Every structure is written in structure tokens, then in C-alpha cells.
């Protein structure tokens, strides 16, 4: 292999690895705080990318109706007990977030000239549609069974994943989409031509990782999440509501997912079911970190990115097989380093 090709592959690997790192961090976070293995993470990637594509095509994204639907469901689930308990204030809050917000967004989208908006505004709108589905999903799917065994939560995750893929097909059709790059600039580094999009991806990923770090270190809510991850019961006794922690975590995960989708849409064609494979690579990375360590997960993500990029050069047909079988030596290593069979909680 010639050196410039190798450099290109490395660069490709870093670009994808950065995305996998973001997803892996979100997966570790969700698992730590809620014990949910968040399989539907990938659907947020696809929803983010395809919602942006629809906005850029000038149509009101069909995902908006899902947001409205979920909003109605959450309002029903939370609003009725609030009403019965004679807390109209709470009902108002629930309805505000879950009914007024989606409908307001719908009104806004029908007025705005979507196609001619600046790209950043389109991205913001796409995120505004997709991200709130995260906490809504937590409320409807996971919160009722928050204390169930991990296994049940995992099966529910898989069910939610399938549902979202099916709905993705309904919303976006079977056609793939690719969005225009955020930047056409090319950075010329001797033998290496770095496209602007790569820089955007790496920069955004790094910024987000630093921002998350700051969030967990500096803010009260970040500390609350960390406390919940460490000791759920203890955190609850200290007044941290588990459902708030859950919703907040899912908000972050949905944000990271949708943003990843927006970032990769210009470099790869995204189909309604692409997200799963992307997120699964994030999973491989997270498992490298034992679903517990953020730095190891991020390192794992870079490794997965490199492996994928080099195997697509040497054995492109077997690219996915190679990436997913990487999990086997990782599990072996984890297994050899683990002690006894633990009692399930």
C-alpha cells in the first residue's frame, strides 16, 4: 500500500471514529444512568440525517408528526394523573412541552422558507424536531419499567429499535439521502488533502466531548447524573429524581445521535435503517470500554474507525464482518480479566 493511500485511510478512520466515539459515549452514559442498553441510538442518527435532508428539500419533515404523536401520548400519560391529583399547574407544564412545543414548531416550519434557510438554521430545526423524542421515548417506553432487570430493558430496547426502523421506512421511504457538505474548503497538507467536512466532524466531536466533560464536572445536573450512575438508590435519597435523570440522559443521547446523523449525512448516503449499523459500531467501542469507561470507549471508537477503514480497502465485502467480529477478542480479553459469575441484580 502506498503512503498517501494509507494516510487517506487513516483520515477516513478518524472521521468515522470520531462519530463512533460520540455514539459510544452516549451509550455508556445511558447505560450508566438508566441501565438501558440503548439500541435505538442508531435511529436517532438516521432520523437526524433524514430530517435534515427533508428540510433541505423544502418539505416539512414527516418526523414532525411523530413528535406531535409522542407529545399527545406523553400528555395523556402524565396529564391525566396530574389532573386527577388536582395539579393543573403540572398539567400545564406537561402540555406546554409536549403539545404546545411540537405544534408551535409545526407552525414555524409551515411559515419558514425551509429550502432557502442558512444551513445552520436547517440543522437547528432538524435537531429541534428529533431531539425531544429522546426524553419522550424515555417517558413512554422505559420509565414504566425503570426498575426491571437489565435483560428486560434490553429486550424493550430492541423492540423500540425495530419500531423506529419501521417508522423510519414509513417517514422517509426506502431511498437514501445525502446532504450537501458544511464546508467545501480543502486543507492541503502536503500529500494529504483534508476535506472541510472531515474538519467539521472532528472539531464538532471534540467540542462536544469537552462540553460533556464540563457538563459532568461543573454543573449541578451533570453531577446529579454522575451520582445516579454511581449509586441509584443513594442519588434518589439525595432528592435526585430517577425519571428526571432518565429524561435528561435520553435528551443528551438523542442530541448526540441526531447531531451525529447531521454530521455524517454529507459523507455517506443515509437510509432509514443505516443508523443501526453505525450505532452498533459505537457499541463495539463501548463494549471495548466494558460499557463503563468513557476514555476506553472513545479509544475503542478510534480503533473501530481505523479497522473499518483499512478493511474496506483490503476486503471491502467483509468490512462489516471484520468490524463486528472484533468484538470477540474484546470479549475474550474482558472475560479473562473478569472474576466470578456475579449474581444478577
Amino acid at each position, binding site marked *: 500500500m502506498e503512503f498517501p493511500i494509507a494516510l487517506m485511510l487513516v483520515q477516513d478512520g478518524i472521521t468515522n471514529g470520531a462519530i463512533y466515539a460520540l455514539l459510544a459515549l452516549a451509550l455508556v452514559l445511558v447505560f450508566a444512568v438508566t441501565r438501558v442498553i440503548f439500541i435505538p441510538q442508531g435511529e436517532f442518527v438516521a432520523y437526524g440525517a433524514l430530517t435534515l435532508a427533508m428540510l433541505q428539500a423544502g418539505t416539512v419533515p414527516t418526523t414532525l408528526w411523530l413528535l406531535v404523536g409522542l407529545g399527545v401520548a406523553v400528555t395523556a400519560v402524565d396529564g391525566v394523573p396530574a389532573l386527577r391529583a388536582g395539579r393543573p399547574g403540572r398539567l400545564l407544564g406537561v402540555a406546554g412541552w409536549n403539545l404546545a412545543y411540537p405544534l408551535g414548531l409545526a407552525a414555524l416550519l409551515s411559515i419558514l422558507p425551509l429550502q432557502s434557510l442558512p444551513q445552520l438554521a436547517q440543522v437547528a430545526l432538524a435537531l429541534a424536531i428529533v431531539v425531544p423524542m429522546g426524553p419522550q421515548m424515555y417517558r413512554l417506553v422505559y420509565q414504566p419499567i425503570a426498575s426491571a432487570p*437489565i435483560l428486560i430493558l434490553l429486550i424493550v430496547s430492541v423492540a423500540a429499535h425495530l419500531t423506529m426502523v419501521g417508522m423510519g421506512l414509513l417517514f422517509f421511504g426506502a431511498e437514501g439521502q445525502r446532504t450537501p457538505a458544511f464546508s467545501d474548503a480543502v486543507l492541503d497538507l502536503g500529500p494529504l488533502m483534508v476535506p472541510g467536512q472531515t474538519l467539521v466532524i472532528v472539531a464538532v466531536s471534540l467540542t462536544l466531548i469537552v462540553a460533556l466533560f464540563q457538563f459532568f464536572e461543573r454543573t449541578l445536573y451533570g453531577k446529579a447524573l454522575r451520582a445516579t450512575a454511581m449509586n441509584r438508590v443513594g442519588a434518589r435519597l439525595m432528592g435526585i429524581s430517577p425519571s428526571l435523570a432518565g429524561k435528561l440522559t435520553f435528551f443528551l443521547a438523542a442530541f448526540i445521535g441526531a447531531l451525529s446523523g447531521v454530521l455524517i449525512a454529507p459523507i455517506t448516503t443515509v437510509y432509514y435503517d443505516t443508523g443501526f449499523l453505525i450505532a452498533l459500531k459505537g457499541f463495539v467501542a463501548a463494549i471495548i470500554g466494558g460499557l463503563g469507561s468513557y476514555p476506553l470507549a472513545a479509544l475503542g471508537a478510534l480503533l473501530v474507525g481505523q479497522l473499518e477503514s483499512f478493511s474496506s480497502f483490503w476486503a471491502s465485502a467483509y468490512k462489516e464482518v471484520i468490524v463486528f467480529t472484533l468484538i470477540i477478542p474484546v470479549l475474550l480479553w474482558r472475560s479473562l480479566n473478569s472474576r466470578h459469575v456475579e449474581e444478577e441484580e
Partner: protein
Amino acid sequence: MNAKLSPRLVLGAFLALLAAAPLFLSPFSVTLLNYIGLYAMVSLGLVLLTGVGGLTSFGQAAFVGLGAYTTAALTTMTSLPGWLAWIGASPWLTLLAGLLLTAAVALLLGSLTLRLSGHFLPLGTMAWGISLYFLFGTSESLGGHSGLTGIPPISLFGIVLDTGEKIFYLIWAFLLAAVLTTQNLLDSREGRAIRALKGGIVMAEAMGVNTSRSRMVIFLIAALHACASGWLYAHMQRFVNPTPFGLNIGIEYLFMAVIGGAGHVWGALVGAGVITLLKQWLQDILPKLLGQAGNFEVIVFGLMMILVLQRARGGLWPLLRRLVPVRVDNKHIDESAEALPRRTPPKAGELILEARKVTRKFGGLVANNNMSLEVKAGEILALIGPNGAGKSTMFNQLSGVDTPTSGEVLFMGQPVAGKDSRDIARMGMSRTFQHVKLLPTMSVLENVAIGAHLRGDKGVLSSAWRLDRAEEARLLKEAARQIERVGLGEFMHAEAGSLALGQQRILEIARALCADPCLLLLDEPAAGLRHKEKQALGDLLRKLRGEGLATLIVEHDMDFVMNLVDRVVVMEFGQKIAEGLPDEIQKDPAVLEAYLGGVE
């Protein structure tokens, strides 16, 4: 008169209907039934794995594919090397080859993930499922995405099973054999070990069950069922392509098990039936309703799963059972069964357990400091002390759950450190737990029988084919004997979870006795017992002492301890502050100070 139906009658009626089905159903319906049979076989494996064992796999479709592709490749390829080609001569040989290959893969995957916490197995199987699917799709020699055609039909006793009506009987014979053997397995010594996996691992290990092995066994069985289903599928369809072996289908199998009722063998059949028929109907109606083509039934299945898991985790089977009043028979206890052999009891006064200068530090905290004690055959020793004195830590050192920082614990002259709970159980130490650990949905009899695990040796295959009945009768008789002995006879067939806490503690003692121990470690046995029950427990322990058993009790109840035991060791702040006869201890100034506080 009992108005309920006998289980045999219901099963017989079902079999008769099934046997007659091809005579009056349309070929299309028979094909549907064939699919239901094939799917049910896979989801049956998942019932065992998920519903019973608390593990799960998303890669079952890949095991089905392994079975299907193995037979397809071996029976259709012309360019196989000589050492392989002979297998392709008969589908029955390729079934064997497929099963062997599947067992190898399952063993590998299992050994990688089963030592880790429960969620790594499903994640590993997910990756494995996807990888195999891509491999089938990209491998030229396996026909890529168009697959392999021209697979010969199976022949059985000269009959060529080349139509749906003919293979129908083979498929359902396989399924019924699988259901019955699974049912048999669950109702056996190995089955109790498997049922203990969900929520009873620490207890089961202490009773001598190798739980890692049990996990592996059910994962293997599930994989082999899937493989056999794939073999039948390939010879029914006569061609294979990768589509039915993808991850989504693997997930669908899990849905079948969960929706049907993952805790019951027949739930697999119900789930497979419901999902197959529903899928047929939804694939018809949804595209018309939504105006576009696609697999929209997954939306319905996904939502259904979420609802089932939120609202009715037992699935459909328990609901169905309420509709058909089938009698549930109590387990039969054969009084004529031969008694189990017993270990040679140690001579009275022989040293059984000895702790020598045991110190256990957790960081800077010294939980046990220089603790020494002895228990001899035919005596009861009490370990007492105020809260936080370090009794539980000491108990863990003695039972081998934890390893001392320094000093050693000898049981029957051998060091306990470094041995796992199973070895220690085998040496003759049996224990109860401070927080009762039993399997609430199993009967008292079955719970107690777990204690006798090490006194039987019949394995999975003999259990599945009922070759273990003589031994099983002996085990159950022993369990029943111990239950009568501790005075729980009237609750023999009740669910263990329905007993009062005090009775559950007594159950644990019966379970420990079932192991025929020479040392009994009891962690607060009298807690939660009423006065009469305490008296009965005291009488029992005195009787056991008379038989030469050594007993160590950690206890709070002073009246109970002082009237029962031979010697007392008192701990405070991790150290022994007194040791002696109950009367001496009650007058000991250090003990009085520890319990009542000093005189100001």
C-alpha cells in the same frame, strides 16, 4: 370430584387434532403450520434461555442459518473435498454435521460471554448474527444473496418427504420431541439447577451447582434447537438464501418467546403461532392501509413487545391457561425409593472447623482481628456480638465466600481459602443465608431438593429422556424426609414464596440438611420465628447434635442461644472478647459491658 381436565387428556386432544390437520386443512394452511412448528422450535430454545435462565440471544436466526447452510452446502455442492463429500450423501448426516458445527460455535460464543455479566451474551450474539448474515451474503461459494438451490428432500424409511403435508409430520415430531425433552429436563436435578440461574446463583453455587455450566448447557440447547429447525427449513424450502437468517429475524424469534410466555415451554408454540399468523395478516393489510410497500409489521410487533413487557411480562400463555382448566398435579413422592447414601459421619468430638488467627482488613478497617475458634462434631457453637462486631465478615471467612487477609480457616483439616463455594459444599459444609435466598415460584419440595444436588449425578441427556427417574425419586424422597423433619410437611407442595419469613428460614435449614453435611452454618436462623417455632428449631438442632453434626450459629436471640448451644464465642469490634459455656458468658464482665454498656 375434580372438575378440571387431566393434562394427558388435553395433550392427547391436541396431538389428535394436529395429526389430522393435513387431512382437512388447505395446503397453504399446512405450510403455515409448518412454519409455526419451525419457529416454535427456535423460540422454545429461547424460552429455556430467556424465560427460565434469565439470559438471552439475538443470534438464534444465525444458528438456524448455520443449520440450513451446512446441509445446503454439503448436499448441493459438487466440488467438495473427498473427506467432506461423503457427508452430503444423506441429509441425516448433514444434520449431524450441522449440530456439531453449531455446538462448536455456541461453545466458543458461550465461553467468551457467559463469564461476563448477563448483557454481554445478547450483545455478542447480536454481533455474531450480523457477521454470519453478511458472510452468507458475500460468500461466492455459498451463492451470495441469491443463495443455494436444488437441496434434496429428506427421506425417512423410504418415504420421500417432498411435499408440505409429508414434511409436516417430521417437523411436528421434532418440535414435540423438543418440547417434551425440555419439559423433562426442567423437571429434574439439572433442571432445578437451570431454574436457579434466574435470581439464585449465589445460593445454587453454595449448594454445589456449577452455574456457569448450567448457563452453557441452556445456551447450547437453544443453539442446537435452532440448528435443527434450520435443517428442516432447508429441506422443506429446498433452497436457502441469507434473508431468513438476519438479525431482524433473530429478534422476531425472541418476540415469539416473550409474547407467547417466556417462562413456559408451550409459550413458545403460542408465540410462534400468534406472531406467524399476525405477520401474515399485517403484511396483507398494512401496505394497503399505509399506501406503500415495506416491512411495516415490525412497528406493530415492536409496540406489542413494549406493551407486553410493561403490562404482562408473563406473556400470553398464563392468560390462555386460565381459559382451559387443566389440573396441576403435585409431584409424586415415592416412599419405596432407596435412601441416598450418606457420608461417613465424623466421630463425636472430632475437630471439624478451625479458624486460626483470622484477620480481615478492608482498607484501613479491621473487620476481624486475630479471630480463632473451633467447632467439633456433635456440638453447637454460637458466634454472638453486638451489631457491627464483625460476625458477618467472620461468617464469610468461615464459609469461604471471602478470603482472610492473614490467618487461615481449616475445614476437615483442609484450608478453605481459594476454594469456591461448590468445592466447600462438596466437602460437607452447608449453610443458610441471613437474607433468605430461595426460588419463590418453585415448590418447597423442589427448593429443598436443590440442596441434594451433589448427591445425584444424572446429567442433561438422561434428564431429557427420563432416564433419571430412579435417582430423581431418591432425591425427592430425601428432600421430603428433610421437610418432614423440620416440620414443614404440610407445605411440601406450596410455592416457597408463599411461606412466612420464619418458615422460609426453616426451609433453608431443610435444604442445607439435604446435602448431608457434617457442618451446618446457620446465619440468624431464629430471626422472624415465633416462640413455638423457635422451640421446634431448638429441638431439631439438639437432635442433629445428637447425630454428631457440628453446628455454628450466628444469632442475636440470647434466650434461644443460651438454652441451646454448648459454647459461645463473643465478638466486639472484630475481636474475640470472650469464649466459654453459656453460663460463664452470661456473667462475663467484658460481655456485659459490650452489651449493656459500662457502669458510669
